[in-house]
């Protein structure tokens, strides 16, 4: 990636972005849907991300980072111009099938990028797998997406929930915490993270004092925190995100529990929430495949470019979007823009080794990322890397027939 480091200015990006978006609006009306291959026809990239609702910020960062990557490559995929069809998923599972259908059947996109929400992801992948468009998942973490639902044309640049939970167990043992309470939002992703956590924590000699699943997406934790206090564990491992994460970290601190119980969590507990959590987050340790402070050239370049292009700080979601852009570029460049050469393109994508802002990124046989997982701690409002919790963490891809 560093070879085409043209250092675009913010203005440059904004203009190109606008052109691309305007093109989208016009094209969906005037350009007839064709399957034509050739240098003249534009490549259609369908984006299904949430721009409203709880996950809106995630969706926006993912899209902007992907656009940044494309614009760094001159807004060409294998020599062909790009046309975006951008749809707000609203992170609503019930609408996922409809919206995916719109992208596949009405817009006939060549690539499908999305979503944020795991369940939306399942509905989407279910339609796209097989002969659907090449699909790149830039966030949704459900194990099934590269497990039972895995398919040659489905890639993920984010993580599986297994990769989120499994390194947490060993990291906490390594930190010396043996009696741990598990608290998590009681929905698919939360449950998968907790299950993966136990897979490394229990065999390593840890004890789960109690599991406290709390209703998703509710944020009144007071009763549960009282229970947590009464259980008196060494530490607590959590999965919360967004508004729930802000509230949890603040309530935890307000209940005075920081003194006696060490707070750990999957990375989303503190990712991008520094401003809202403030002091309450100080000392909270989280496990994630990225940290703002990673000192590698790719990250330094990416963070400044993203800041310049969008005006906001990059976060892990932006990284995943940026890598999604990179992966599509790799595939299209390998076939010089010939989307018909599907097998060749898939081969190029699955063998990619990307110099990502997160560090080295490669792909497993099930098309799930393999990457380092970091243990981080909030120090002075920043997620700083304490150590690498797991080197080149893979995913078991349970149920996948491609492995």
């Amino acid at each position, binding site marked *: 990636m560093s070879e085409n480091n043209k250092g675009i200015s913010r203005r440059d990006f904004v203009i190109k972005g606008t052109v691309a978006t305007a093109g989208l609006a016009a094209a969906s009306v005037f350009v007839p849907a064709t399957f034509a291959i050739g240098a003249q026809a534009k490549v259609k990239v369908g984006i299904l991300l949430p721009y409203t*609702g*709880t996950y*809106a910020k995630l969706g926006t960062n993912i899209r902007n980072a992907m656009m940044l990557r494309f614009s760094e490559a001159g807004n060409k995929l294998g020599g062909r111009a790009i046309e975006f069809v951008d749809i707000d998923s609203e992170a609503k599972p019930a609408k996922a099938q409809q919206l995916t259908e719109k992208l596949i059947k009405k817009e006939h996109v060549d690539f499908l990028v999305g979503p944020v929400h795991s369940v939306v992801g399942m509905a989407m992948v279910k339609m796209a797998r097989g002969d659907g468009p090449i699909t790149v998942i830039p966030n949704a973490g459900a194990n099934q997406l590269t497990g039972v639902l895995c398919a040659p044309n489905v890639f993920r640049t984010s993580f599986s929930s297994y990769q989120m939970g499994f390194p947490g167990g060993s990291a906490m043992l390594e930190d010396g915490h043996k009696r741990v309470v598990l608290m998590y939002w009681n929905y698919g992703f939360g449950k998968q993270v907790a299950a993966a956590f136990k897979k490394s924590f229990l065999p390593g000699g840890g004890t789960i004092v109690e599991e*406290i699943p*709390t209703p998703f997406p509710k944020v009144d934790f007071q*009763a549960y925190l009282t229970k947590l206090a009464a259980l008196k564990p060494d530490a607590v491992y959590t999965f919360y995100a967004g508004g729930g994460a802000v509230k949890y970290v603040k309530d935890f601190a307000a209940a005075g529990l920081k003194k006696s*119980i060490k707070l750990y969590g999957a990375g989303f507990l503190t990712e991008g929430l520094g401003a809202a959590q403030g002091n309450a987050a100080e000392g909270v340790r989280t496990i994630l495949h990225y940290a703002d402070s990673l000192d590698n050239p790719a990250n330094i370049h990416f963070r400044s470019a993203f800041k310049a292009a969008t005006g906001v700080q990059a976060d892990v979601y932006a990284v995943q979007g940026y890598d999604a852009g990179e992966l599509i570029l790799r595939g299209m460049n390998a076939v010089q823009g010939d989307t018909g050469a599907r097998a060749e393109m898939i081969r190029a994508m699955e063998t990619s080794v990307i110099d990502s802002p997160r560090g080295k990124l490669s792909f497993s046989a099930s098309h799930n990322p393999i990457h380092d997982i970091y243990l981080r701690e909030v120090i002075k409002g920043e997620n700083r890397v304490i150590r690498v919790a797991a080197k080149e963490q893979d995913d078991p891809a349970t149920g996948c027939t491609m492995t």
Partner: protein
Amino acid sequence: MELSFYLVQLLNAIQYGFLLFLVASGLTLLFGIMGIINLAHGSFYMLGSYLAYWLTGVTGSLWLGILLGLPIALAVGYLVERFAISFLFKLDHLYQVLLTFALILVFNELQQILWGTDVHSVPIPAILSGSFQLTENQSYPVYRLFISAACIALAGAMYWVIQKTRLGMTIRAGASNREMVQALGINVNRLFAFVFSMGVGLAAFAGMLAAPIDSVYPGMGDNVLIISFVVVVIGGTGSIKGAFVGAMLIGLVSTFGKVLLPEMASVVVYALMAIILLWRPQGLFGKVA
């Protein structure tokens, strides 16, 4: 679990109950006096929280934020009443449900346009930021106690206004017999606009008070709305006393439900409502229709 554990949970339950009461009392007033089912009530709670977030950010103080925010909330309430709700009195409940449902959609979008989709939080004022030790490892934020105290004060004030003042008499009369208020020579339109603004004010005030212990996020009103309706219906529509008892019941059931029946935590609240309505179809303190 030790006794102290249950005592702390009781404290949690009561504190939650107080906050619910604040939201539900506005709702029950609107229904009792105006006969309006206001699904947008949760949106006004959200409005309060966002106003607190925004104005606290601007002024640097939650107190100033509340002071400036309340008139804004009251004004919004007044406008909504004038331009939408006031057309609904003659119509069926069905239309009220639908119109206020549409208002939720509108308010949620307006919130996103005005304040974006980020999660925010509001700092606890320095003077109340302390906490005191409850058990050996758990402390309780002073601010939570403050909320309870504020709710008690407000409940007392409402009781006083409704039982002892002329305005209260009018309101009570209106709740029991709407035609009678007109017969008393009171300008019903003005009374209704006033009551609606007050109801909105109560919801917004609850949102403002809760902002520092809650996080401020899009769609936050929806969670509050349904549970406040449960409170109102359990208590009996139009009854402030009922709203209070209902709020306390829900506070207790939902807090201890979480601890004792974690799998069914969200279901028990609704089950309680169904059982109470089976026993008393008009709610605990409701009038027999």
